[in-house]
């Protein structure tokens, strides 16, 4: 008991996804105890290429490069595409709509810079004693992090 007390930390821990280990399996959308998952897609704008043909936004081989639903990858239309300057477009995540399914993250990682990634959003997470998603995480990417540094943000593309 004493040794546990010695080792205990003043800081509480929270759950977070290591984006470098995430394999975009889609379990985050379905295994959170909340009805709408606390895991959302997050955008590291500094890594983004602002591509006109964003492979995180568009279906593979889209009919046209417009915001029509048939061209979009996101099942809930949670990504907003705004024109910045020719030929650049900015992609913003609407977290109220995002369900954390990682479809866009997969597209961005596979063909793009990997600026889209999943994170547990702590304004939504109820911080279960044992995260239900962590038990089924295909990439073993969930871990406890100190509550004062609750995010593991991407700063370089593809973790290098």
């Amino acid at each position: 008991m004493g040794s546990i007390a010695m080792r205990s930390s003043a800081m509480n821990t929270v759950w977070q996804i290591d984006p470098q280990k995430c394999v975009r399996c889609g379990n985050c959308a379905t295994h959170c105890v909340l009805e709408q998952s606390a895991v959302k897609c997050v955008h590291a704008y500094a890594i983004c290429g602002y591509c006109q043909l964003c492979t995180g936004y568009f279906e593979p081989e889209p009919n046209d490069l417009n915001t029509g639903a048939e061209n979009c990858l996101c099942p809930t239309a949670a990504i907003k595409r705004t024109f910045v300057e020719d030929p650049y477009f900015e992609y913003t995540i609407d977290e109220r709509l995002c369900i954390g399914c990682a479809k866009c993250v997969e597209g961005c990682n596979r063909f793009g810079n990997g600026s889209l990634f999943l994170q547990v959003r702590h304004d939504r997470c109820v911080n279960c004693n044992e995260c239900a998603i962590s038990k089924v995480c295909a990439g073993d990417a969930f871990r406890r992090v100190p509550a004062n540094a609750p995010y593991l943000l991407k700063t370089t593309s593809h973790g290098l």
Partner: protein
Amino acid sequence: MRPDANESGLTAAGGPENRAARPRFNPTLSLSVLILLLISTVALAQQRFPPPDFESGHKLPLTTTPAGRAFIYEYVDVAVLAACIAISVFLIYRKRSRAGLVGLSLFSLAYFGFYRKGCVCAIGSVQNIALALFEPGYAVPVSVLAFFILPLAVSLFFGRSFCAGVCPHGALQDLVLLKPIKVPAWLEQALSTLPFIYLGAGVLLAGTGSAFLICQYDPFVPVFRLSGRALMVIAGVALLALGMFVGRPYCRFLCPYGALLKAGAMVSRWRVTVTPDNCTQCRLCETSCPFGALREPEEVQTTPSVLRQDRRRLAFLIALLPVLVLGCAWVGDFFSGAAAALNPTVSLADRLAAEKETPAKSGALSPDDLALDRARQNADEFLRNAEAIRKRITTGSRIFGGWVGLVIGLKLVGLSVHRRRKDYEPTPGDCLACARCFEFCPSELVRRGFPNGFASQPLDGSPLEPALK
């Protein structure tokens, strides 16, 4: 980049490059970049599309990081817990007030239950402690440690005061209790070993990093959160429905933390008594306890023949104890496979070993296939690691089996020891200190000034009614 960027990926990637025709990029150049990407390596994968320099002076938005609950609230929770326990002790031992405890229960239910959504709670903290015991890399947060220690320490002095009105699980069940029925003694005694067995299973699975069983199968947290797994929502509602007629079924027959508190309460310094001063054996309190904790006075037979028989039975049971422990430890070995299957690493390793020869799938992979893919990348180390965990689980399962044997053996020993009781009194381990029995005791009513208070203010001179019927 994942090294297995496959064929379908490439076509899709080629498409965008041809169509998008980004003026800053020479198509052939980007194509060659993609080809280089195919041979894939880390260094090249780093920058596929360099971030643009905006001519319009566009400012990059910042990635938002919404904060969770502020750190200070961890201590607020602990302070509220400590205050609630103190109030509970005060209400039970000093005020002897059932109404006060109902009020406290309502507050606990609202705060620890519906506001804090039942997490982290004392019941679940057992697993954090178990994990910290066996996993050197895991540091228990101080607040969780406090949730574990505070109620337990108090139980050594004041019994299960935490259960009485602080635990949201207990409060929820206590408030739905409508018409308690008596559970037959044999069933009550048999079921009362379950919390200890559940505690052992919870510690085994948490200590080996397999699962937080007690949290996963918590029936009331889905009620507090108003969402959860269908199975547990049904279990929670069913337990509450049962709880209308059987007093606090989870606390008495399942709660693993209750098992610890029971052990503490058995040796507690102060105990709940039905009567504030002396018992007149009026038997009015006999049926007052909805939790089967109230025992009637028992005269121990001391005739030599009975005594000899009792001693012989006790000696037999004590001799049986090590046999039971070893036997159950042996049986526990058979369950190590089931326990290991609950560990994500071990179950993945099993699949990896089974499918080592089959080639990796390509195309859209299911989560399970992706996990297998991850394990494959460093297969030998993964299998070695899983084997080490499996060994720990096997050892743990044997210890758990022995623990089950010990619990059953000690229960039998406990049942065969007769204690002399001359008053009606609650058994310290089983008493949840709910304060229901107090107002059944005429001495208590006298203490509260009932008959006298009644007598001093007769209604319009009518003859005095007896306060107690």
